């Protein structure tokens, strides 16, 4: 299991144990964490699972594919540490990961 901290835009924290193999998005959605909509269920088709990866973790979450980059390019409030959480696979190496959510996914 990897402990992942999801922080909503208003500061509310959700600390969850997420099974490796799931994505960071699935960890949130399956536990009913608000703020990650994931309308397309992880098909990289909608950009409604946007998160900011904590700066200490950006080296471990990998890099965005060209498809993900172009989707993010049009999301609201994009920062250098923005990712689509459906494209980050959870591994033991991400134990302790912290992600923050934007104000809105739409």
């Amino acid at each position, binding site marked *: 299991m990897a402990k992942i901290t999801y922080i909503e835009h208003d500061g509310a924290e959700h600390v969850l144990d997420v099974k490796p193999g799931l994505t960071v998005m699935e960890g949130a959605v399956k536990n*009913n964490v*608000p703020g990650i909509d994931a309308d397309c269920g992880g098909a990289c088709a909608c950009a409604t699972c946007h998160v900011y990866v904590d700066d200490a973790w950006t080296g471990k979450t990998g890099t965005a594919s060209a*498809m993900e980059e172009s989707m993010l390019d049009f999301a609201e409030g994009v920062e250098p540490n923005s990712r689509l959480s459906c494209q980050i696979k959870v591994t033991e190496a991400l134990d302790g990961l912290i992600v923050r959510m934007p104000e809105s996914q739409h």
Partner: protein
Amino acid sequence: MSQPGIVIVGAGHGGGTVAALLRQYGVEGPITLIGEEPAAPYQRPPLSKAWLKGDADLDGVQLKPLHFYAEHGIDLRTGVRVEAIDAAAKTVRLSDGEALTYASLILATGALARPLPIPGAELAGVLALRTLADAEALKAALAPGVRLAVIGGGYVGLEAAASARALGAEVVVIERERRLLARVACATLSAFFQSTHERHGVHFELSSGVTALEGDGRVQGVRLDDGRVVACDVALVGVGAIPNDEVAKAAGLDCSDGIRVDLDARTSDPSIYAIGDCTRRPMPLYDREHRLESVPNALEQAKACAAHIAGRPQPPPEVPWFWSDQYDLKLQIAGLPFDVEQVVVRGAPEDATFAVFHLDAQNRVQAVEAVNAAPEFMAGRQLIAKRKPVAPEALRDMSLSMKSIAAG
């Protein structure tokens, strides 16, 4: 007996989501979620893709883990049908004989695969693709060399065709219209998807009606209206869906090709909401009512319904959208092609990266169909929401970024 709470009829994507959102929005009191299928709410889109190919399991497609429902005080009842609604008494009668009283009722009954009213439709090996059980049956039937006849060149049929080819099956798609996706996509897209499927070994019988399914107990062929028979080992019928609104109609709710709802997902009965494929809803960007069959639509209405019940402000209206994955192609469609005067292609279909923009008489983007073209899809969505005219030549000009066009 506890006080009446919220009863949700239909435990699909819409029903499962609205139950979870009600709790997320702080709504207390009993919530009962009733599903006809044996499974807890799951995502249907992977059924024609990852599920058929064996790349997804039940855990992966379930909306929430099973323990979620009990933990959040949601009484999930699967394998049960709602037989009737008594709107005056505010009760629903279940197939197991129980009657449940509600304060608010949410109908999320979805759509049903349109049946094919021809001889032989009941033969073994004639399948539909709507439920997990359907997908399991199709998956079990597909193997290298198995001959699959797909009746209907729509999204379900084409996605299943692509998956079947990946599994080594022989595939023929039979379509009544002259082109694929005739009801749901433009001619450029139809031609592009046809040539892509042909390159992957799919055969097509276009402009072909189907008069019978033939076989002795088990399907062996599909008879076309010109008399020829397409031999097959299994037939998939994907000829569209019809709204599952019979129970709503019988209860006296206003229905017209779907349960009519307002932007808060309310039906003609103030205690009854309806969401998803079973509804006909206002489309604020297009100034008309329409029935949509898509996951994003069900989610948008689930949010509207939960917000209304929770007394939260309504989220702004979303631009309708849709996606389809076939082979290595990602098709993303935003908007609806109503009142289209002009169609503009950006990029080249032969590069498998292009978009088709649909403009109205004022050059406002009504819809965009994007193949492997995320910027065009995302910018198109923004342009549709803005309702501002765009120069067609700007859309054609690949030296201008979609970002700059959307900002203009």
